[in-house]
C-alpha cells in the first residue's frame, strides 16, 4: 500500500515569533524549523501502517523553499522511503488553495491509496489544506483522527475522530484523506541509523511546470500581522484579609467584570 504524507515545515514551538518589517509576515531570522507536530503524527501513523502490513511505501511531500529539504530529510530519517519537494518561485506566496492544488496534482501522479496530513500546521493554524486537497481529489476525508485501521485488503479505512466527550467512528472507502490529531500515536525519534540511511534516499525536486501548473494569484491576502498586546501587569491587593477580600471582589466585579 502506498501512503503519501503531506508535511509542513514550521517554526519551532519554542520560538518567540516576531512580526517582520513588512508587517505582513513573520521575521524568519534565527528561527529553528521543525516538522509541524501534527504532521509528525501523520508520518508515524503512515510508518506504522506500512510496518503492520509488512509492505508498502511511504512518501513524504512538502511545499516550500530550500530550507524545507531539512524537514523532508527528517521524515526520511524517521523511516519514509522517499520524499517530494515542491520548490518553485511560482509558489513563493501561495495560499492554502494553491498549496492544495499543487498537492492534488502530485497525488494524482503518485496515486497513493491513502493521504495523511496533520489536523493543522502550527504556524498559522489554518487547518484548511487537507480539506481542500480532499475536495479537489473528490476523495472522502476525516479530520482530528485519534485511531485508524486499514482493512486487510486495503479497500477501506475505519477512522475514529475526536468529538466532545468521545470518538466518532467512520468507515471511509480508499483512497481517502485523513488528518491526524494529537494522541493518534507517539512519534518515534529518528535513530542514528535512520539519519545516516536518509542520506541515500531520494528527495525529488518538483517545479510547478512539472505538474502543469503556473503561478496563480492568491485568493487570500494577508493584510497585516499584529503582535498580541503585552499582558497588563498583575496587581497585589494589600491590607488585612477582610478588607482585601472586599477589594478583590469589587475589582473582579467592577474592573475585570469577571463575576
Amino acid at each position, binding site marked *: 500500500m502506498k501512503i503519501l504524507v503531506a508535511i509542513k515545515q514550521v517554526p519551532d514551538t519554542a520560538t518567540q515569533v516576531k512580526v517582520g518589517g513588512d508587517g505582513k509576515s513573520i521575521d524568519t531570522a534565527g528561527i529553528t524549523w521543525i516538522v509541524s507536530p501534527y504532521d509528525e503524527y501523520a508520518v508515524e501513523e503512515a510508518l506504522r501502517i506500512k510496518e503492520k502490513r509488512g509492505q508498502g511505501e511511504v512518501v513524504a511531500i512538502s511545499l516550500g523553499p530550500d530550507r524545507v529539504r531539512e524537514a523532508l530529510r527528517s521524515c526520511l530519517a524517521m523511516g519514509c522511503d522517499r520524499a517530494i519537494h515542491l520548490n518553485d518561485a511560482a509558489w513563493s506566496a501561495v495560499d492554502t488553495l494553491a498549496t492544495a492544488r499543487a498537492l492534488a496534482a502530485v497525488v494524482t501522479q503518485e496515486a497513493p491509496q491513502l493521504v495523511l496530513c496533520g489536523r493543522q500546521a502550527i504556524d498559522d493554524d489554518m487547518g484548511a489544506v487537507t480539506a481542500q486537497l480532499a475536495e479537489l481529489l473528490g476523495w472522502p476525508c476525516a479530520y482530528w483522527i485519534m485511531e485508524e485501521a486499514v482493512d486487510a485488503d486495503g479497500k477501506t479505512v475505519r477512522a475514529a475522530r475526536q468529538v466532545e466527550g468521545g470518538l466518532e467512528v467512520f468507515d471511509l472507502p480508499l483512497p481517502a484523506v485523513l488528518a491526524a490529531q494529537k494522541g493518534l500515536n507517539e512519534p518515534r525519534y529518528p535513530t542514528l541509523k535512520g539519519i*545516516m540511511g536518509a542520506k541515500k534516499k531520494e528527495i525529488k525536486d518538483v517545479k510547478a511546470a512539472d505538474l502543469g501548473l503556473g503561478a496563480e494569484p492568491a485568493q487570500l491576502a494577508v493584510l497585516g500581522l499584529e503582535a498580541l498586546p503585552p499582558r497588563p501587569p498583575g496587581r497585589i491587593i494589600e491590607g488585612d484579609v477582610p478588607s482585601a477580600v472586599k477589594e478583590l471582589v469589587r475589582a473582579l466585579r467592577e474592573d475585570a467584570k469577571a463575576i
Partner: protein
Amino acid sequence: MAGEDIYGSPEHQAFRAATRKFVQTELAPRAREFDEAGRPDKAIFRRLGEMGLLGIRYDPKYGGQGLDYSYHAVFLEELTLCDNAGVGMGVSVQTDMATPALARFGSEALKERYLVPAIRGEHVAAIAVTEPGAGSDVAGIKTRAVRDGDWWVINGSKMFITNTANADWLCLLAVTDPAAGYHGYTQIIVPTDTPGFSYRLLDKIGNRGSDTGLLFFDDVRVPVANTIGDANRGFQQQMNQFQDERMVPVVAGPVAARRLWELTLEHAQQRVAFGKPLAKMQVNRFKFVEMMIQITAAQEVAHRCIRKMVAGEDVTLDVSMAKVFVANMKQYVATTCVQLFGGSGYIRENPAARAYVDWRLGTIGGGADEVMKEVAAKLLRI
C-alpha cells in the same frame, strides 16, 4: 559556526536535533528523580541503545553505528544537557570508559557476549581500576587475579566505581604477575552476579544521580576466556582506554559551562539591586565576559581534540592538557555563577549550586590534574 568542519553536515545537524529532543524529553525532566534514587533508571540505557547511541563508534557487526568520533562528540555534547551530571557520567562510563578496550582488544566471543548487549543497552558496564589504596598511582593497585586452570580467582577491592549498583559487568584491572612490573596487569570482564562479589554505595557531595561504590572481591571465579586482549597487557590497554575516558569531560565541559553561563545571565538580567539589573553593573558584565573568554577558549581546545580523534591521531598530550584546562574553567565558572546568584546559588536545586559540587570532581576523577600534568610533562620532555 565554530566546529562547522567537525559537525556541520546535515546528518550531524539532524542527529543533534534528534538527540536533543530525546535528552530533553526523556532524561532532563527526570533529572531530580535520578538524584533521589541515587542512580539513573536502568531503563534509560535500553532506550539509549534503541536510539543507537551506545555504540556510535563501534563496528556494526556488534550493533554499533560504525561512525567516526564527530558523531559521538555530538552525543556527548547533548547528553551533558540532561540536567544531571551523574547520569551523564554513568552513561559515558558505558560508552567511553568501560567498553573501548573490549571493542579494541577483546576476542570475538567476548565481544559477542558483552559488547553486543552493552551497545543494545541491555547490559550496564562499569570500569573498575581505582582501589582504596591506589588511584592516581594505577600501578599501585593490589587486587589479584590468580590462574586456577581455566579460571581467574580474584581477591581484593575497588573504590569509587561509577555504575556500581546498575552494572551487569565490570571491566576490571587486576594484578596477574606481581614480579613483571607494568607487564603484570590484566583486564578481565567480571559479571556482577558472580558469587563472591559484593559492594557498598558511597554518599557523595555531588553527581548524586550516579551510583558510586566500593567493590569487594572474595574468591570471585571467572573464566580465563573473560580476559580482554592479552593477559599481562592490561596496564597498557587501560592507559589506552583512559584517553577515551578523558575526552568525555573535554567534549562535554564547554557545552555544560556555556549552559550555566546562559542560565546565570538570564538571572542577572532580571535580578535588580540598587536600582538596576545585576548584569548592568560593570563588575558583573566583566565577569560574564571573562567567563566567556574561558568557555570559548575551552571550546576551541575541545574542537582540536575532537579533530584529532576523528583523524585517528594520538590525543594523549592534547587531551591531558585539555582535561586540566576544561576542568579548571568549569570550576571557575561554577563558583562565579554561584556568586552571581547570591543566596539562591547556595540552594541545592539551583543550577550553579549543583554545578559547584558536581564539577568539583573534574580536577580529580579520571586522572587528577597533577597526574595529567605528569603525563604532559613526560610527552613534552620536560
